[in-house]
C-alpha cells in the first residue's frame, strides 16, 4: 500500500529566486530527464500536491505566501529546498529583507544545494524526499490507528 511513493505530485514555488533554480526544476520535466516516468506530475495546486519544491531566499513579501501554500498541502507532505538560497540564503543571507533559508519559515525535509541546483540533484532530492514521505505516511496511519484503539478502549 505504498502508492504515495509511486505518484508524488509536486508544487513548485519561487520564493524570490533569481529564476536559475526554477528553470532547472522545469528542465526535469523535459524529455531528457522526464520525471513523469516516476509518476511525478508538476501540479499548480497545493491541494493536489505531496512534495513542495521551494527555490530562493524568502523575503518579507512572500514569507506569508510560502506559509499559506505549505498549510494548504494535505498531509503527508514533504518540503524540498532547492538551491543554496533556499537552503541557507546563499549570498543574499545578510540582506536586510531576506529571511535566509526557507527553514526559518516552514519545516524542510531535504536540502538540495547548488547555484543553480542541477536537474540530476533536484531529482535525487525528490527521490530522497519520497522515502521521508513514506515514513510520514506510516506515522500518520499509526497515529490514527492508535487514536481508534484508544477510542475503542474507552468504550
Amino acid at each position: 500500500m505504498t502508492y504515495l511513493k509511486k505518484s508524488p505530485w509536486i508544487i513548485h514555488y519561487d520564493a524570490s529566486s533569481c529564476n536559475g533554480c526554477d528553470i532547472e526544476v522545469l528542465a526535469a520535466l523535459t524529455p531528457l530527464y522526464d520525471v513523469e516516468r516516476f509518476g511525478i506530475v508538476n501540479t499548480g495546486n497545493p491541494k493536489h500536491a505531496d512534495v513542495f519544491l521551494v527555490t530562493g531566499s524568502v523575503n518579507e513579501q512572500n514569507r506569508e505566501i510560502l506559509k499559506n501554500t505549505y498549510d494548504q498541502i494535505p498531509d503527508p507532505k514533504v518540503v524540498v529546498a532547492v538551491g543554496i538560497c533556499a537552503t541557507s540564503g546563499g549570498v543574499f543571507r545578510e540582506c536586510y529583507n531576506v529571511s535566509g533559508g526557507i527553514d526559518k519559515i516552514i519545516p524542510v525535509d531535504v536540502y538540495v544545494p547548488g547555484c543553480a541546483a542541477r536537474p540530476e540533484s533536484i531529482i535525487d532530492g525528490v527521490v530522497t524526499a519520497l522515502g521521508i514521505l513514506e515514513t510520514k505516511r506510516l506515522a500518520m496511519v499509526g497515529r490514527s490507528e492508535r487514536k481508534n484503539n484508544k477510542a475503542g478502549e474507552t468504550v
Partner: protein
Amino acid sequence: MLGPFAYCRDTPRGGGLMTAGPFEPIINAIVYILLAPVVGGLIAGIDRKVTARMQGRVGPPILQPFYDVGKLFEKEDVVVTTTQNFYVLSYLVFMVVAGALFFSGGDMLLVIFAFTLSHIFLVLGAYASFSPYSHIGAERELIQIIAYEPMIIFTAVGMYMVTRSFFVSSIVSSGIPIILYLPGVFFGYLIVLTIKLRKSPFDLSTSHHAHQEIVKGITTDFSGPNLGKIEIAHWFEYVFLIGVVYLFFGWNPLLAIAAIIIAYFLEILIDNTTARVKWQLTLRSAWIVAGTLGIVNLGVLYYLKAVVP
C-alpha cells in the same frame, strides 16, 4: 433500397432486450460497474504513455492512473465545505448510473439525462467552494456542457431515425451499419468527444497537463479522496463515451473496436498538436459542427425517408 426505414415497420420495439433473458440487462450493468473502472483506468494509462511518446519522453507506467488514485485515497481528507462531499459522490453515482443504463440497453435519452445531471453535480461542487479559480473552472465546465449537449442529443436522435428506437439494446441488435447513415453525426460526435475527454484544444475547465493559469480549474478545491472519486468517475465516463462510438459500428464488433482505437488515437494526436482555445471558439466550433454536420445529416435522412419509403 432495403434501408432502415423499411426495416421494423410494425415490429414492437423498445422495452429492452427481446431475445435475452430477463436478467441480462442487470448482469450487463453489474459487469459494467465492475469492469469499467479497470478498463477506464487502463485507457487513461495508455493515453498518458502515448502522449509521452509523442512528446519524445518515456512516460509513466501504464498503471500510473491506479497509483494516482490509490495515493489520493491515502492522503488527508481536506474538505473546504462539507457539501462538496455530497456533490462529488453524486457526480460519481450518476456517472455510474448513466453508464450502467447505457450498457444494460436502456433508453438513450435517459442515459443522456443522467450523464448531464452528473456533470451538473460536479459544477455545483466547484461552486460550493470559495476559490475564484474553482468558480472560473465551474463556469467553463458549464460552457462545455452547453457546447457539447446539442451534438450528443443529435447522436441519439440520429440513431433513432435509423433504427426506430432510442433503446441501446435495439440499436445494437438492429444489425444496421449506422455509420453509413450517420457519417456527419459521427464526425460531430468525435469533435465533442474532444471536449468530453478534456483534451486540447477544448480543455478549458481543467486539464491533466501543466496549464496552470487557473490553477486546476474545476478541481482546484477538491483534494485527496474527493479528487480520487472524480478520477474514478472520469474512468466510468471514458468507457461510456467509447460505448457510444461502438454503437455506430454495432453491426460489426471487430470494426467497432478498430474504430474505437483509431478514434482515441486521433483524440490523443489532436491533444498533442493543438493549443488551448478560448471559450468563445469552443462554443462556436461545437455548435457550428452540430448545426452543420448534425442537422444536415439528419435532414438528409429525413428527406430520404420521405422519398425512399
